[in-house]
């Protein structure tokens, strides 16, 4: 039973992190229907940026975190301005391939600067975040991830629901031409959604880095694990991303624990193929699939 609970807790925390990483991905898809294959690299960039600020520049943690978020926001903005702006109106395949190219470029750059070894942040989380509950202990890293994730979820949920910019973003996602003709500044919406997505990715990169250590390969492979998560949750649903992440995380840890550790990394993709065949719009996605 003890083993079961440990797996459960592990699964929930891992799954929550997946959900967190998937949120930024969903945000880009929601507003511009672009599949961002560079998402894992954005996550890794956030983690490394924070690392550089904490260890090299020796900034205080809170300031370093805020600067990281601001930097990621600016980076997302720049990516959109430099690389994606010229492609507005081009077929979607070019945009997707561009993100694949960006992924390769960022990965090479990060490997060049920081190398492929595992690095860690200095220990800075306060002890009182450790949650103790009978036999179950939740380390501070996980509980802080929980707090961060929940607050981001609430903020963005409200943002999409009530703020004008959020409504613009939703309208662009729904129908670009109609939004344009009603006076929505589509280009600004794209730029903003990339900036926000990069910000969320950077944030989840920092959290992942605190928990697992920072490694280019590990962090960028999270970017691929985002796909089963978002397909399960529904490609355009923010809360679906979190729930999909939880399910995938639990599935992973339980297969790893009870069946075969090597199966752990493949099982999400098997589920992915299954979902695509049975219920392609996911659990919470908009049922708007065009059958061909």
């Amino acid at each position, binding site marked *: 039973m003890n083993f079961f609970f440990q797996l459960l807790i592990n699964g929930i925390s891992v799954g929550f992190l997946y959900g967190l990483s998937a949120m930024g991905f969903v945000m880009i898809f929601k507003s511009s229907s672009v599949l961002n294959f560079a998402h894992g690299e954005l996550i890794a960039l956030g983690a490394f940026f924070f690392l550089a600020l904490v260890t090299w520049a020796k900034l205080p943690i809170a300031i370093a975190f805020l600067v990281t978020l601001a930097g990621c926001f600016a980076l997302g903005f720049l990516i959109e301005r430099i690389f994606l702006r010229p492609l507005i109106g081009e077929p979607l*395949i070019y945009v997707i391939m561009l993100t694949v*190219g960006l992924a390769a470029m960022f990965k090479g750059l990060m*490997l*060049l600067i920081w190398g492929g070894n595992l690095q860690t942040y200095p220990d800075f989380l306060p002890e009182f975040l450790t949650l103790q509950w009978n036999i179950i202990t939740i380390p501070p890293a996980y509980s802080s991830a929980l707090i961060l994730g929940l607050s981001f979820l609430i903020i963005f949920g409200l943002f999409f629901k009530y703020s004008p910019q959020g409504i613009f973003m939703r309208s662009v996602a729904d129908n670009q031409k109609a939004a344009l003709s009603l006076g929505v500044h589509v280009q600004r919406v794209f730029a903003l959604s990339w900036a926000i997505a990069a910000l969320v990715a950077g944030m989840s990169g920092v959290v992942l880095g605190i928990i697992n250590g920072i490694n280019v390969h590990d962090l960028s492979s999270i970017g691929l694990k985002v796909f089963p998560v978002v397909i399960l949750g529904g490609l355009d649903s923010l809360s679906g991303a979190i729930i999909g992440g939880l399910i995938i995380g639990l599935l992973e840890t339980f297969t790893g624990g009870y069946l075969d550790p090597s199966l752990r990394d493949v099982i999400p*993709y098997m589920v992915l193929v299954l979902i*695509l065949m049975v219920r392609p719009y996911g659990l919470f996605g908009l049922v708007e*699939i065009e*059958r*061909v």
Partner: protein
Amino acid sequence: MKKFHFHPCGNYRETYDQELTVFETDFGRLWTWVGIFILFLILPFLGTPYFLHVLNMIGITSIAALGLNILIGFTGQISLGHGAFIGVGAYSAAVLSTTMEMPFLFNLPLAGLIAALVGMIFGIPSGRLKGLYLTIATLAGQIIIEYVLVHWESVTKGTMGITLPRPAIFGYELSTDRDFFFLIYVSLGLMIFIAINLMRAKFGRAFIAIRDNDRAAEGMGIPIFRYKLLSFGISSFYAGFAGAIWAYYMVSITAEPFNLALSVEYIAMVIIGGLGSIAGSVYGALFITSLNEILRWLTDILMNMEVFTEAGVNVAPIREFFFGLAIIIFIIFEPRGLAEIWRIIRSGFRLWPFSY
């Protein structure tokens, strides 16, 4: 006397036959023969074994890139699993020739067919869904196949890999790079021939119709699901065929090279070469393989330079960086690839001095 055909200065086609013609001008046909002559009678007898090795790799990658171009460029379906399908072909050939002890000449098409079958399984979601979902399905396919190749140890020998016997055609054993050169480029010629004619025939037209507007295509009576699956099958067949040759040429194979990076590399080839262009696939393979070799050579030089070894800088990731950069530059500045650049250069000459 025969009337010679030259490049017209506009589109003056009047019949359907003219639309379907392979060689628009007599020069096209002439240059093709000259090219084949140079390729088979002069190139293999020039240069060092290294040069031949690079040429062979270009040939093999061209075959696989051709397959991917049929899928992406002609049918408009993005696949991220091409590297894995090449792996399926390579492993099929290896298992067929070691465990089953089948003759070499059967193994090549058989490996292609096995890869085609596997590819079509992962193509099934394309029947229900458009574009993006299929890309994700093939991504899953890539990762699942990679896993199977490593963990199905009774067949694939896991991380040990399989060593293949020397292939023999009617008793003649292929052993040198030059032997393989002929094998590879005859296959490539055959594959290009098949691809060109497939794309001229009803299949190619249906693929292009699906790419341009699938609803309209369905309205015209094209059974979309069947053709998408067929396109997947053809594309994976090319991948498997190339993989089989690759396995024989490399002698021993492991699952390691057939990863997602390889799939991305092939997509880069197709985009850099030119989507929807048969010649473009070959240009793309040529470009990427040469880039690979140049970067490897550059890394070797940099690795040996004292500044870098002392600073402990690892220059290997430079390759990945330039790959991404090449993809991005082509997409932004010339999304139709090298084939389009070549066409512009040619028409520049043809229309000189009034090129605009």
